[in-house]
């Protein structure tokens, strides 16, 4: 009976008793007690996100402070969950929000509908809407799940001026900049 509990190493003639195998297992577990745990103690320590992580949306600006978003609503068209709502308005040189003719006067994303697929980011012609790194989104009532334009716009970069800006006529006529290859 005891012999039938012996374990045979397949392919070899080496037999080991049940008892010695149990002791080896116990030794392994004991040694693993002293290894450093792999747990990351969130929220004191946060694991950095990967490079192309799809987190909270952001509406980017140019270095001079003008918004990149031109209100073309290609993102709204591309969105599979119908989460984006865009209303465009006309830019004037006295009050210019973005280069070109139009800007997004109303830009809302319903975060409860959004599936964070990144199609809006792919569809945008000016690289305005971008999915960033933030994943800590929580709210306590449904109304606060609608993120508005002010919430989504990034702060003005250093060296830029806040929108709306007053600019020289004719300076920012092109709505889509000369596109560069991704770096």
């Amino acid at each position, binding site marked *: *009976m*005891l*012999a*039938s509990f012996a374990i045979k190493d397949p392919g070899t003639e080496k037999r080991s008793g049940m008892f010695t195998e*149990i002791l080896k*297992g*116990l030794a*392994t*577990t*004991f040694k*693993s*007690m002293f*290894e*450093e*745990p*792999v*747990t990351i*103690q969130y929220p004191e320590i946060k694991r950095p996100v990967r490079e192309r992580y799809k987190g909270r949306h952001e509406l980017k600006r140019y270095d001079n402070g003008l918004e990149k978003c031109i209100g073309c609503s290609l993102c709204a068209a591309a969105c599979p969950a119908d989460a984006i709502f865009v209303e465009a308005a006309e830019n004037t040189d006295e009050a210019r929000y973005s280069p070109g003719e139009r800007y997004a006067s109303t830009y809302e994303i319903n975060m409860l509908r959004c599936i964070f697929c990144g199609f809006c980011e792919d569809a945008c012609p000016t690289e305005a809407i971008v999915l960033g790194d933030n994943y800590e989104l929580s709210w306590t009532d449904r109304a606060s799940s609608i993120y508005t334009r002010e919430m989504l716009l990034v702060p003005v970069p250093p060296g830029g001026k806040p929108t709306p800006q007053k600019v020289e006529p004719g300076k920012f006529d092109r709505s889509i900049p000369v596109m560069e290859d991704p770096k």
Partner: protein
Amino acid sequence: MILPAEFIIFLKNYEWLVWLVKAALVVFVLLTAFAYTTLFERRVIAMMQTRIGPNRAGPFGFLQPLADGLKLLFKEELIPASADKLVFILAPMITVIPAFIILAVVPWGPTVHLCPTPELLGAQASACYPLTMGIADVNVGLLYILSVTSIAIYGVVLAGWSSNNKYAMLGGLRSSAQMVSYELALGLSVVGPLLLAGSMSMGDIVQAQSKIWYVVLQPVGALIFLVASLAEVNRAPFDMPEAEQELTAGYHTEYSGMKFALFFMGEYIKMIAVSAIAATLFFGGYRGPLVGDPNVPEWLQAILGLLYFGTKIVLFLFLMIWVRATLPRIRYDRLMAFGWKVMLPLALANIALTAAALVSSIAFWVLVGLFGLGVLFYLLTTVRQVGKAELAQGPLEESG
């Protein structure tokens, strides 16, 4: 220890009060110990799995058992509609109460004599009150422990039955069959220290280990006791009856809230109880350096004795947790085969050899020789049959 004479006379007249206080103290200490055993287990298993256990509720997770207890208190108590209500409610109690009362006979430390004047210290004067560090040192302590352990099996099978759920029923039956089988080996392994000490009283057994611990004289008995007690408590690797994967939590499937907490409590307190009994029977109980030394004051001996006993219990608990983190669950039929075909014969052989050794060394060696011949015969026949099976497969062919 010196105390005013009036207090000692009060103690002598109100002995039942002393027992009551001791019993209440043991129950409260056990409840706290149970709570922190759960935390200890979770953190030790986590350490063995290279992760951190609960450390959020309070510093180092110290309030985690409290949080778990509160959660279970607030949970909805569901009794299935077609369950046998009375039995359903009674079953957890039948499981838990024996776990507590086993520890009534375990000696927690050496006796402290409370004397009114210093001259009477040391002498067995009648004016002194002997405060025993145990609730009741019955002279059939071992028998009491074995019989009370058997009562707990009723709770398990009744829980499975009253749930009106076929998985719970199967779990209950499996569990009770397992516990009954391993209780045989448990009871027989306990006979070794009984023979060596010549008494069933737990206090006497501890005193008899003053020269050498019984684990040295009875290594096989100690091993059988530890393995059988793991099976008794339904702990891994013998926890098939509560296997989530196979039986959806077995006999306590239908239990929720406080009743489930009672089953949980029963299991862990039985773990503590069995650790205490193992420490008492094989590892010297409360004995250790300075305990039993007549030059050391009794109160210090009592404190040290408690400390040693506690340390031994914690070490056994760690051993049980360590085994749980290492070994996979044993399949039920192999579990039963192991209990009846390996543990029982080994325990019987242990008793025979111990008894023979106590009679005379000639008897012992004659018996060893006979057992050796029997084992040799068995091994020879077994190996021959295994060889035949392998030959029947034919020569191995190289693949590929």
